[in-house]
């Protein structure tokens, strides 16, 4: 049977390439789920890709319970920015943490210097991409993950057919070039491209 989804390692790797292209070589990976496989893979993909581009990355682990507190996440990122002035990029692994990073960079007064990229979409993240506050968001197209998984199962149940191996729904980069279309879909069809 097939797996419909995104390779988290490649999501992180693509993020590293996008950061390097914009000149960000010292990227903080904000890990709001330390120990979870998806999160570790995204951070290690980022680290490998930046290393290839001649940069590096460091991890900021936020304990699980604290990750539900936007204030603590924002302030932890501010602390990391303050302790390491080399940081010129922040990679977040979820859309709410992405907005915390935007706030942290602004409050620390480094919004101009520090580029922000994230995994997953929300209307707040999409608006921030349009405003230039977030460089990119990596879309794993969760709607397709649900849709094709059911379609594959239905065809398997009816006819015994199925796709083989990995069906990749991501990573797909959303940036200033294509964000308008995504925002339009997000406002017309809630939940298909990004959360509210």
């Amino acid at each position, binding site marked *: 049977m097939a797996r419909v989804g995104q390779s988290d390692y490649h999501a992180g790797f693509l993020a590293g390439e996008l950061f390097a292209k914009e000149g960000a070589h010292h990227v903080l990976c904000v890990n709001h789920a330390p120990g979870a496989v998806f999160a570790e893979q995204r951070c290690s993909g980022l680290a490998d890709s930046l290393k290839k581009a001649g940069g590096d990355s460091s991890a900021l682990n936020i*304990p699980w319970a604290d990750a539900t507190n936007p204030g603590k996440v924002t302030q932890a*990122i501010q602390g990391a920015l303050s302790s390491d002035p080399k940081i010129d990029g922040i990679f977040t692994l979820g859309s709410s943490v992405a907005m915390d990073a935007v706030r942290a960079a602004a409050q620390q007064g480094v919004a101009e210097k520090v580029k922000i990229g994230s995994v997953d979409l929300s209307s707040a993240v999409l608006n921030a991409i349009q405003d230039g506050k977030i460089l990119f968001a990596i879309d794993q197209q969760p709607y397709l993950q649900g849709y094709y998984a059911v379609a594959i199962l239905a065809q398997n149940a009816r006819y015994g057919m199925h796709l083989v191996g990995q069906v990749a729904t991501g990573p797909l980069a959303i940036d200033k070039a294509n964000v308008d279309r995504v925002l339009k879909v997000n406002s017309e069809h809630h939940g298909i491209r990004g959360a509210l």
Partner: protein
Amino acid sequence: MVSAAHSDHGAVSARPRASQSAPAPGWTLISSLKRAIRRPEFGAFAGMILVYIFFAVAGKGGFLTLAGTANWMNTASELGVLAVPVGLLMIAGEFDLSVGSVIGASSMIVSIGNGLYSLPMWIAIVLAFVIGALIGLANGIITVSTRLPSFIVTLAVLFIVAGAALGFSRLFSGTTAVTLTPEGSARAIFGSQAAGFHVSILWWIAITAIASWILTQTPYGNWIFATGADRNAARSAGVPTDRVKISLFAATALGAVLVGVLQTIQYSGGDVTYGRDFVFDAPVAAVIGGVLLTGGYGSAIGVFLGSVIFGIVNMGIFYTGWNSDWAQLVLGTLLLLAVLGNNYFRKLALKGR
């Protein structure tokens, strides 16, 4: 007589004692120092100074900047707004774990009500406080009428409210997090900031001042100590212990709603997961601040200092630049040391009486 309930059972009132006789000149400084050490918040005060110095040195300078100060104060203030009423409830001998999901529920009531259904912001906020008060009353009434441990009752309510918040959020909005753009007076009162310092700091100070006044200056404050020290003795002395407990459960729930409203407006959106970190952080801050887990002893100023310590340790660690894998190890160690120190000073205080 309430004070009779205290002395009969060897329980301790946390109220500072006035000096019995005028001290001889020259001894004034030493005796006032001795008196300060015997206050229930002295241990927490000493702990605060210690962790502050620790991170002032380890925090690479960033911790001491204005932004760094705002940073730990914001965290401490959100915690303290809730930890102070939780501390009062613990002095009366009860726990409230349900606050964790009340925060998330109230953030969704405000963000769905105002953000999706276009209710006026203030109506959404009042609705959140009313529902919160009802949850608090339910906690209190179930606890006092069944005599079950409030740890279990409020743990059950923690799950019930978390499930209800998730279910109703999905029902009304189709999602579990709603973005909001708060404006006007509600923004000013719950979400304004100056130089990075959030308005929650003012709420924190005000709530501490009121709680401290209630605890030390009113008969109701005396009832709280009496209820927590020995419920039966307090009852026979005429203290309405059930009413004391129920009203304190309502107060902790209202504190939780306030945190939910502060977070929703400060961070422009609600999320059902908000508040999970408060379930244990709030009682921990109270204990660090000198409140006894068994009830009957503590102070509002102590809980205030406990939340300062928690805020400093929780946020200071990120200024050190140490590998954040170790952050919780350091947090746990420093908190243990803070409580140990506190215990030492409390024993000193009790011996001196």
